[in-house]
């Protein structure tokens, strides 16, 4: 069985990628993921904002607070930065590269153009095989236009591409007026892959305390429909790798994404829910599914259910939406 796949030029032994999550910050987990068959790993994001905030916090807790009293010139031993700062993340990249043989993709989230470039360069120097841009961005400024938002993504990508030579993936949210055009713009700007989709954490309101609740809800398989749709639409129509992300819990889900046209399939929630050993379940499950259908390689099925390959391309478009809703109601009425 040939599960190998190419992801923005990286050769993966299979399409399953453990996407960015706190799990992947632990080197033991990375080793376990490799042992359990992961094709690649994405490290937790470097957040420029977090680095700056942490550095300020450390400064507030150590040097600034400490220089006003004769008996205590400080309250902590060296080093002064206590390991906070980019170096901590870069060390994870270095250690990950030492620990595993599968490709290591670093994820980056910055707030300033210079930050994107600096950290991307540092990540490359630390040995990452590729970079995933986690452009986590809510355009809450009401004067910002759709063009502005799109330009922001493209500009970030250009800055990073200029700064580094490693392949760069862009992880996107689904909220673009014209996702297809956005995908084209990013491809033209040098993206090696598009990761569909970023799940923006959405706040809830706690009615008891009247506060925002920021608890993270893990994804469910029901959420995979939207990325599935866009992967199916984009497959074969933009010269870029497509990574499916969101809702991958079982080998069936992986199989679906591959059928829609994904080059790789990412999972986080299932690993958080079931542990890193679940990677083995997915890989073995995929192998069994393919074997049962006597499929010898991924190439045979990738994109088989994409819009381009479908006999009825409109199946992915609006007309079908009406049918679905009708069918749903009919089902409930029984």
């Amino acid at each position, binding site marked *: 069985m040939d599960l190998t796949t190419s992801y923005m030029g990286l050769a993966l032994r299979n399409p399953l990628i453990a996407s960015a999550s706190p799990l992947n910050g632990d080197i033991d987990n990375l080793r376990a993921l490799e042992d359990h068959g992961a094709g690649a790993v994405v490290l937790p994001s470097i957040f420029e904002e977090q680095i700056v905030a942490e550095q300020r916090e450390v400064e507030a807790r150590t040097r600034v*607070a400490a220089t006003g009293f004769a008996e205590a010139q400080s309250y*902590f031993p060296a080093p002064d930065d206590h390991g906070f700062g980019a170096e901590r993340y870069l060390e994870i990249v270095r250690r990950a590269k030492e620990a595993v043989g599968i490709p290591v993709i670093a994820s980056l989230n910055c707030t300033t153009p210079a930050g994107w470039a600096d950290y991307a360069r540092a990540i490359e120097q630390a040995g990452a095989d590729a970079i995933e841009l986690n452009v986590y961005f809510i355009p809450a400024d009401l004067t910002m236009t759709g063009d502005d938002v799109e330009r922001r993504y493209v500009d970030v990508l250009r800055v990073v591409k200029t700064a580094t030579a490693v392949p760069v993936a862009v992880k996107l949210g689904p909220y673009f007026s014209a996702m297809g055009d956005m995908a084209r713009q990013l491809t033209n700007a040098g993206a090696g892959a598009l990761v569909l989709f970023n799940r923006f954490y959405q706040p809830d309101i706690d009615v008891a305390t009247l506060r925002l609740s920021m608890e993270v809800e893990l994804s469910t398989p029901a959420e995979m429909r939207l990325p599935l749709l866009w992967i199916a639409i984009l497959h074969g129509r933009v010269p870029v790798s497509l990574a499916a992300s969101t809702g991958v819990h079982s080998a069936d889900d992986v199989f679906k994404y591959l059928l829609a046209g994904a080059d790789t399939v990412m999972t986080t929630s299932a690993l958080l829910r079931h542990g890193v050993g679940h990677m083995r379940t997915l890989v073995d499950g995929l192998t069994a599914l393919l074997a049962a259908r006597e499929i010898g390689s991924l190439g045979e099925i990738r994109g088989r259910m994409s819009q381009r390959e479908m006999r009825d391309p409109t199946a992915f478009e609006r007309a079908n939406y009406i049918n679905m809703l009708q069918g749903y109601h009919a089902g409930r009425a029984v």
Partner: protein
Amino acid sequence: MLTDRPLTDTLDGNTAVAHVAYRVNEVCAIYPITPSSTMAELADEWSAQGLTNIWGNVPVVQEMQSEGGAAGAVHGALQSGALTTTFTASQGLLLMLPNMYKIAGELTATVFHVAARAIATQALSIFGDHNDVMAARPTGFALLSSGSVQEAHDSALIAQAATLEARVPFLHFFDGFRTSHQLDKIEVLSDAQIRAMIRDDLVRAHRARALTPERPVVRGTAHNPDTFFQARETANPYYARVPGIVQSTMDRFAELTGRAYRLFEYAGAPDAERVIVLMGSGAETVRETAAVLQERGERVGVLQVRLYRPFSAEHFLAALPESCRAVAVLEQAKESGAPGEPLYLDVMTTLASAVAAGRRATVPRVVGGRYGLGSKNFNPAQAKAVFDELRKPEPRNGFTVGIDDDVSHTSLTSDPDFTIEREDVVRALFYGLGADGTVGANKNSVKILAEDEGMYAQGYFVYDSHKSGAQTISHLRFGRQPIRAPYLLESANFIACHQAAFLERMDVLRLAVEGGTFLLNTPHGPDEIWDRLPRPVQERIVEKKLRFFVIDATKVATDAGLGGRINTVLQTCFFAIAGVLPRDEAIARIKGAIEKSYSGKGAHVVRKNFEAVDNTLARLYEVRVPAEATSIVELTPVVPRFAPEFVQLVTARMMEGRGDELRVSQLPIDGTWPPGTAAFEKRNVSDIVAVWDPELCVQCGQCGFACPHSVIRAKYYDEDALGGAPAGYKSAPVNARGYPGVRFSLEVYGEDCTGCGICVEVCPVHSPRDPGVKAINLGPKAPMLDASRESIAFFESLPMNDRSRVDFATVRGVQFLEPLFEFSGACAGCGETPYLKVLSQLFGDRLQIANATGCSSIYGGNLPVTPWTVNGEGRGPAWSNSLFEDNAEFGLGFRLAADKHLELAATLLRRLAPDVGDELANAILDAPQERESELRAQRARVDLLKQKLAAMDGEAAHDLLSVADHLVRRSIWIVGGDGWAYDIGYGGLDHVLSTGRDVNVLVLDTEVYSNTGGQASKATPLGAVAKFAAAGKRTARKDLALQAIAYGNVYVAQVAMGANPQQTLLAFREAEAYPGPSLILAYSTCIAHGFDLRYGMQQQDLAAASGYWPLFRFNPVMRTVGERPFLLDSPRPTVSLEKYAYNELRYRSLANTDPDAAKELLAAAQQAVTEKYRQYEELASRGGERFHPETAPVGAAALMN
């Protein structure tokens, strides 16, 4: 790595010494004590980093439980052949003395490095003098003195080389703070130079003398009268050789480095008539002064003593010019009752012996004098005063300089206008706050500028005694010649005031030179600032023709994205306008430094800081100074006019930084100071303060309970009392049933509030309309200051609530008890002080406290003010600090005396019962004294008794009157931190708990030595990083509670106010009521934990919720009522240890720097927590019969029950 240092560097004395000591030793046994702690900290850090000594191995650094322990470990390591050192000062050195006699008696090579510090006498002083070193004179250690950072660096090596050759141990000392903390540009010894000074054959000889079973010997025998004396004399030849060895070592050192030293270094006129002899940094001041006087034609000189013991008369006589007619021996020490201080006696003896032996023709006139005790500034004017005194026909002996002694009239008067400050030296003075980073920025500036070849720099930093809102004054000198001025600036070309509020309460510009530069950080621009300045400030600016600049540093820093850090902005201003370097060159230099510091953090970080520099320059404005002062704003009085006379005359002077001007007669003779003076010091350290919302408040008392600074007070009162209330006075109906017409008010003492925000976080109420609003919130102080003062005055006029009607059992009730501990200078958000405040509320009027040295003795008793105060009856906590190591014993002494005097009082009362009335006598003797109402009743009876006794004649009546106060049950508390309880004072604490006496021990457990800067104690938790545990602590904290429980008759409680204030309250009351020893371990959040203390109470809650700090009480009394004595008050852990621990830098630091170790330690710590909780659960299930049986009460408990 230090080994890659350039040849010159800017270091403080501690670092300069540690640099050498670390490299020439194999073992360091350490213990923290100011001002020497930095040396030990550096050794520990370097060892953790794997830095090697000159033999290529990493020295072992071991923290001990006390300096006594450190000396013992040193002794053992030396006896086992390792090159071993230690670092200490003051009381620490005293604790080492017994071992030092042994080490010297056994002719063992070692060097102890001492940052010389005052010994606690009528008061503690952390500052420098030579009294500690003088106490070590008889130990047999050679004493080698250094007078500057460079000398200390060099002598550290000379001492090590000499001790190996001489076999006599050395104590190398330098002035605490003045040298240990002064930043100086020095030439740093290379490892090759160090290597060349240390002879390996001598190292191997040292090892060969070690104890070994291969060549066994017996050492440490006991002698009988037949041989002890002779054996004591065997070592004399070794001591005789020391001066020669030290001088030859110095000569060898000079060949290697070009820096030459003499045992007795003379400088001055070769034909000097008047000579000052002294040791330490003062010698540099006298040398510079003598040089100036010599230029004026005066025949003066100075003899600096380096090798003080063994005292070489031969070398001394050779160094002292024959022409000398008068000698003043200056000492930074005092020996009461002696014919003179030690060096004076040595000099006298030497000269007299020389004349008697015909080696010198005459004895010059020799006088002795004292200077610089407790780091009193010693300046050239004082040195000149001494030279002038020597010119008199009858110079005074036993004089003092630097003070006005109007009692014994010892002091010499110095000319305040005499100064030798060099005009080619730029002198810069900075007034800042501890929290604004001024000191850090100035240290950085000194280092940056001193990097320039041919530029020399000096930095010295003066701090006030508060831990929150502390004022810092930085004294910086820059010049093209080496700077030899170890005294505070006498005049300044540049003065920066980083906090505009200082201008209103002190004369910031006093030292400005004419034509100097003044920089003010203020939100007011160049066109509006002038009219806002107090008149005296304007007058100074005009009179001294100052160039005046303003910058809004907070705004510039915020705009530049520096998060409000003003230090970089103000540092840039200094570089731009102080004139140390041409402006462009200076700016280039600061940018160079930024690039060096931040390049590792990314080019954009460097760019952002560059932008901040450019923005600073663009927004630094010069103010056009009018021809004359026009302001009508005067300086704010330091203390209110109604303050007592002593506060006006003494305390206020100290508060405004003019304590140096106080005369001897103005100060208490025996260290006794009035309580309650903190209330007069309105420090206004925070612009945002707590603001009460009476509409929302549920009157629960949580905010006042948790407030670390006692600024939140509550009273209930009859609504009629509101008749005289100022407009807008905040009040609400009391929300308890059955109190119609009764109102409640919460008062916030805004000028004393530090804005820590703990009250806001513990407030359980959220506004239903805006959940961000609580019943107490932080708001800007300025707009409500006047109204707040009126409100406080009215609040204080309301009657204090009757203690016998207050519910002591609830937090809600306790808020109505007056705190007798208030407005301390503890850190904003301190976790210790709320416990002390509660202690004072519950038992304050009959409380006697023994307080171990540490944070609580500093915020509790560091002058100028005292936070322990009195109630309306004039009663309150009687507080004293003895030492660090003896606090439990000190407190037990209180109990022993109280028990004895109670016994005496009871006996006398029984005898005098017919005279005072049987009914009264019996009522007093039989009175229950547990409830507050019972105590109030007993007080009334005792007051009546005292009235009767006062009117009676007879010895018995007078005697009873002198001890009658003991008939009211006294509450004796022994208070201290974990450094005391777990480490240095543990032996004493254990013993005191074993006595069965009725003492109450409160351990304010911050899990580190907080006061000295966060060194690990045995309470430091597994996995936390602390100084002396730089790689993470590898052992779990000691379970002091279980050890005490093992006695069976000790009441033990573990509390965390933030987790369960009610349980805290219960434990305090049970402990106090228990008629035997009690121990309370109180979890105290601390700045050394590394999180925002605003969330201190929440973090305490997590400590309990994670099972790390379970709450429990072990009450032996419960056995007598058939209950289980051990009660576990907190539930099984509901969150992981990580969830609690990783909120704190002390844990997260290791997770970042060594994730593998952190993971391993966290897992071990979690396991320890789980197991410990299981163990407590098992204890909680035991019946009373399964604990050590209780014994009969001892002392007062037996007498009165």
